[in-house]
């Protein structure tokens, strides 16, 4: 019984997250300006991180947690660097 509930909920959640990634990807391809693309990439990082956490739930392995943590950190650094680039034209002055 609980296996059925969990499998169904995991499938639905992964479907919703994959759909969210697709929508963020559309916004990133669509633009219209550079800040929109950076914002969409930030959302894409977040969705990928959450998808990894749900995949860890599905397989029951704790290693996906570490991958998710690293993706969260990489997303922060990437978005900050690109916002800095949009503001100043350089990342490290």
């Amino acid at each position, binding site marked *: 019984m609980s*296996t059925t509930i969990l499998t169904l909920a995991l499938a*639905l*959640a992964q479907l919703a997250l994959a759909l969210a990634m697709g929508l963020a990807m559309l916004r990133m391809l669509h633009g219209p300006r550079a800040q929109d693309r950076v914002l969409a990439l930030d959302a894409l990082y977040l969705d990928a991180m*959450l998808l990894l956490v*749900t995949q860890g739930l599905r397989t029951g392995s704790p290693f996906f947690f570490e991958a998710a943590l690293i993706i969260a950190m990489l997303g922060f650094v990437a*978005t900050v660097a690109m916002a800095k680039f949009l*503001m100043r034209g350089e990342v490290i002055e």
Partner: protein
Amino acid sequence: MTAMAEVPLWAAIPIALFLLVGAGLTLVGSVGLLRLPRFYERIHAPTLGTSWGTAGILLASMTYFSVTGGRLAVHELLIGAFVTVTTPVTLMLLGRAAVFRDRAEGNPDVPARPPVEPGDDRPAG
């Protein structure tokens, strides 16, 4: 699949609920990111995913690994704390960069720079 059968029903229902709430809110945030008309409105949409979207999925993960592991597993709090701390920083930086770019190009729908008063040593812009 073997570990999933060990989860009792009283734990499986909240896990499924948290998962669906988190993933659904993240999806709603992405729909907003695609549908909202202006950048300054769009920048608010993905925060649905960074607040309750992340919290829901991490709560589900914490409950699942606590029940199947037989001990309290709260290491997901690390991701939650990290996302909560970094999201305002990145979005403030991105919003300031967008305002700077729009003002530099003279776009009409950006609030004007406030007048600098004497004795005010804040940087302009």
